[in-house]
């Protein structure tokens, strides 16, 4: 069902966890759908994402996409990171089963939410 890359990221997920000093946090999903992702980022003064962590409640696809998005985004400028879409993520994983494309592929949304959170906090300062 899943590609080898998905299984690799599910089995050995990268960057699991939370950060005490995150300056952007995004949580998306819906418990009724069975997928919740929480993405935390630490952005430096040059708008570069220095660190990123995720916690995900969800199926194999949800965990793998979360893991993959953290890899894709690490060290990227916020402007570049903002271009990452759910399709970018599934492509990077060599594709997802059709039924999983919509529901369990929220990692880019979580990233977007985290970036928005970072920006909002920055403005508020």
């Amino acid at each position: 069902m899943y590609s080898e890359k998905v299984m690799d990221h599910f089995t050995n997920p990268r960057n699991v966890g939370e950060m005490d000093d995150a300056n952007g946090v995004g949580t998306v999903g819906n418990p009724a759908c069975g997928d919740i992702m929480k993405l935390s980022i630490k952005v430096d003064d040059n708008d570069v994402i220095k660190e990123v962590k995720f916690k995900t409640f969800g199926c194999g696809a949800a965990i793998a996409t979360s893991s993959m998005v953290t890899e894709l985004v690490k060290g990227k400028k916020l402007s570049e990171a903002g271009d990452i879409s759910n399709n970018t993520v599934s492509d990077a994983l060599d594709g997802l089963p059709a039924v999983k494309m919509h529901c369990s592929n929220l990692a880019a949304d979580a990233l977007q939410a985290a970036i928005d959170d970072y920006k909002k906090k920055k403005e508020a300062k």
Partner: protein
Amino acid sequence: MSKQIYFDHNATTPVDGEVFQAMKPFLTEQWGNPSSIHWAGRGPHKAIDEARDQICEFLGCSSVELVITSSGSEGDNLAIKGVAYAKKKKGNHIITTKVEHPAVLNPCKFLEREGFKVTYLGVDKDGMLDLDELRSAITPETTLITTMFANNETGVVFPIKEIGAIAREHKITFHTDAVQSAGKIPINVADLNVDLLSISGHKLYGPKGVGALFVKRGVRIVPLIHGGHHERNRRGGTENVAGIVGLAKACEVAMRDMAGESARVAKLRDRLEKGLLEGIPALRINGKRDSRIPNTANVAFDFVEGESLLLSMDMLGIAAASGSACTSGSLESSHVLNAMGVKAELTHGSVRFSLGRSNTEEEVDYLIKEMPSIVERIRGMSPLWDTKAQKGIELDFD
């Protein structure tokens, strides 16, 4: 993968070796059409006559009361639509429950679109039906009650005999989907007050592609597959000889071995539940524990998602299911657990272990040994679980 441990017998069962041997001649030399009057038809004709008798013995009915089908789903559809249409002039109301298999729920939904009225009875938190609620749902228009015998997800067994008595009292036709009870607990239609009862071959160590529907003498059904004179005009189509013979052999083996086997499996199931409950925090058993088929354990691993668990178990060669196998391709959470009032985020973490002939104590102990670290790993990734406190977190999000 070295180990292969199968805890998913409610999805399907291995084909029994005796069953395959019984079928083989009818996929090789004995390929004739049982309706043919020449030499090629005679062996197959005799074989399905004998097979029918065997299946009838298993169900406790006579051979005019048997309709062979291609699956449990077909039997359910034939029973429900068949009775609804046959009794259309008498009334248009059907009673069923919210926890039925899609093969019952979806024919009911179809009939609603065709103008019938359907009452879907709820269940309590243990998955049990309230017979008073059933009684008050009956109207003068009610022509059919269809409630499952044993639930495929939780294993909960409904009081079929009592439901049948209520139906009979009101002269309402009563169908039960016995797909998950056949071969696990005794079913004898004569004792059960049922008018129609469906079973499926591949759930009792028989082949896929064959099932049977008991239709009590005198109960009229409109066919689903109109055609030739097969099955006493109730189902057209050349008989699946090998399938029928396979189903019969599966029934024979089940009758022979059921009593001892069910007791053995129940012990394993109880050991499994006890072991998991002791080894893992925040865990519950779904379904009324003292009214279940002996092989099924539905375990709620709170705060984790079921597929992740299944994938992790699969890597160790352990096969189980979350929700029913039929709907595991979908993302909807279990309608059965929803009806029992289980919170949405918890239904996703419910795993069905369904045991069977091949399982051993060693396999159960292996599961008990491996599960805690699997669950811990998945919970460790979950934003809903506090690893230090070993409890759930209320999450705030959009």
